[in-house]
């Protein structure tokens, strides 16, 4: 609010905001509205508002949620998201503490941080072949465990960068006081540092869950049947069934809702995470 806003400007800004919101929200609305339409209504023009233009129904939600494959995929996605995020945060928090509080040679800290971040540069398709061959060797193809491992690897940069910044912002004297009082390093870490970074830690965990839930390329390459998560279920469906708007609506929402809810819960840390720590939103 650097300058006064004139009425003309206010109208212009309001208009832009409305257009931007409609543009962002419309696809979600479209998914929702189709998920509660009877099949005949999806092929009719101008059926956009429930109750007014068509009679909504929950039958597709009920029938989709009764499908065993979908239930299994939801369970698989949940296991992958929880497992990968927990592993990543566990490894990442320890590394973050090391980077924030210990010196690794002259510019070791900066180099290690860059090394962890640089993983986000790697195109997944470069390593999908070795992963496929390795997992085949280990008999881990079509096993959610392989996806837990891989997603933990690719979300590891988030906890490392976000939490090392948070720890660096804490006064070091707190831990030093604990050490003087006879605590050892791991006690100073678990009793002093961890409680203080808990909100950031939980947020990071949630962000890692969202990314692991959304991951597609590895899931597509490494699962064939039992271990298929939601994104892969979705990708396969359309081209065998033809366009059935109502199924699209239900499945898309089932897939999207968890990560979106996660994102809203962790909002404060999202910009920091997505810019790898460069901008703190």
């Amino acid at each position: 609010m650097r300058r006064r806003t004139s009425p003309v400007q206010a109208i212009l800004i309001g208009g832009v905001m409305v257009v931007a919101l409609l543009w962002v929200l419309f696809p979600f609305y479209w998914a929702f509205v189709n998920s509660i339409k009877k099949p005949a209504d999806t092929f009719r023009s101008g059926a956009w508002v429930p109750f007014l233009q068509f009679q909504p129904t929950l039958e597709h939600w009920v029938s989709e949620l009764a499908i065993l494959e979908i239930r299994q995929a939801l369970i698989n996605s949940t296991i992958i998201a929880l497992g990968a995020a927990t592993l990543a945060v566990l490894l990442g928090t320890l590394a973050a503490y090391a980077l924030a509080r210990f010196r690794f040679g002259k510019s070791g800290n900066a180099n290690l941080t860059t090394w962890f971040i640089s993983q986000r540069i790697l195109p997944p398709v470069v390593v999908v072949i070795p992963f496929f061959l390795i997992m085949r060797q280990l008999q881990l193809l079509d096993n959610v465990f392989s996806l837990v491992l891989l997603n933990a690897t690719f979300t590891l940069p988030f906890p490392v960068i976000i939490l090392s910044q948070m720890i660096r912002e804490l006064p070091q004297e707190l831990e030093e006081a604990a050490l003087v009082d006879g605590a050892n390093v791991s006690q100073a870490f678990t009793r002093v540092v961890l409680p203080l970074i808990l909100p950031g830690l939980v947020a990071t965990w949630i962000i890692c869950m969202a990314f692991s839930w959304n991951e597609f390329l590895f899931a597509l390459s490494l699962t064939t049947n039992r271990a298929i998560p939601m994104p892969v279920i979705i990708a396969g469906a359309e081209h065998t069934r033809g366009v059935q708007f109502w199924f699209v609506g239900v499945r898309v929402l089932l897939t999207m809702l968890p990560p979106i809810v996660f994102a809203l819960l962790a909002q404060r840390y999202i910009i920091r995470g997505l810019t790898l720590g460069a901008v703190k939103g």
Partner: protein
Amino acid sequence: MAASETPARPRRTDPTKFFFIMPAVIWVLLFTIFPLLYALYTSFFSFRFGRINQFVGFGNYLRLFTDANLHNGLRVTLTFVIVTVTVQMLLGFALALLLNREMRGKSVLRAIMVLPLFATPVAVGYLSITLFYEINGPINELLRALGGAGIPWLSNPFWALVAVIIIDIWQWTPFVFLVSLAALQGLPADLYEAAEVDGASAWQSFRSITLPLMTPILWLILLLRLVEAFKVFDIPTSLTLGGPGRATEVYSLFTYRTALRFFDHGYAAAQGFLLLFIVSLIVALLFGRIRSIYQEERS
């Protein structure tokens, strides 16, 4: 940007540090470096039916120069990257500038803008099949209501790529917007007040305060977007399956098919390294411009 606070320098050097750092280091070595080396090894062999067949030296890399389908993937990806990233940068930054002021509903706006970023990309692509549906999809219905003709979104090679591009713009413009807005709000207010006292116009303070201060952040956003855009896979795979023909067969999709449909692992590995080389080159070229942002980390 938290340039104002100076984080304490790490002080301790005792060996306990290895207890904290090693698990993550070993993990990355195991799951990133080892697979990369394995891929490098693979790229020197020809594969048949998923098994190593014979050593071919640089044979797989030489194929990169003559494969028309690969060049198609490269061309599609480059077009996609240039158009999406340009539009996202311009639109996102412009929106952030416009909405960088005190107003009601700002936190709601920000929350809504977060939604596309975390909407599962495959699901977005899948949903887009219905959005761009040619007979009675909402986009064509809107175009017809406005007096235009429906567009053959998914059956025409040109429009299919446009559809993929539009969806990516929908998904990632909010990223540019949110990061720019956060950075704009971190700019020192007293500079603007001083400029106003000196009678500078809005344009002048934009040119001489906002733009120079935002430049490193904008380079950073550009770099992050470029890297992500080159990796594009999910949306074209779910929306168009790379088609019609190969019109939207982006690089990663082509490589994926080489590896897991045709089981030509060696050649696919070589393709992967070409992509890694391109992305690394961009990072190397742009990193100098954003170094200052990370400077505080390198104390």
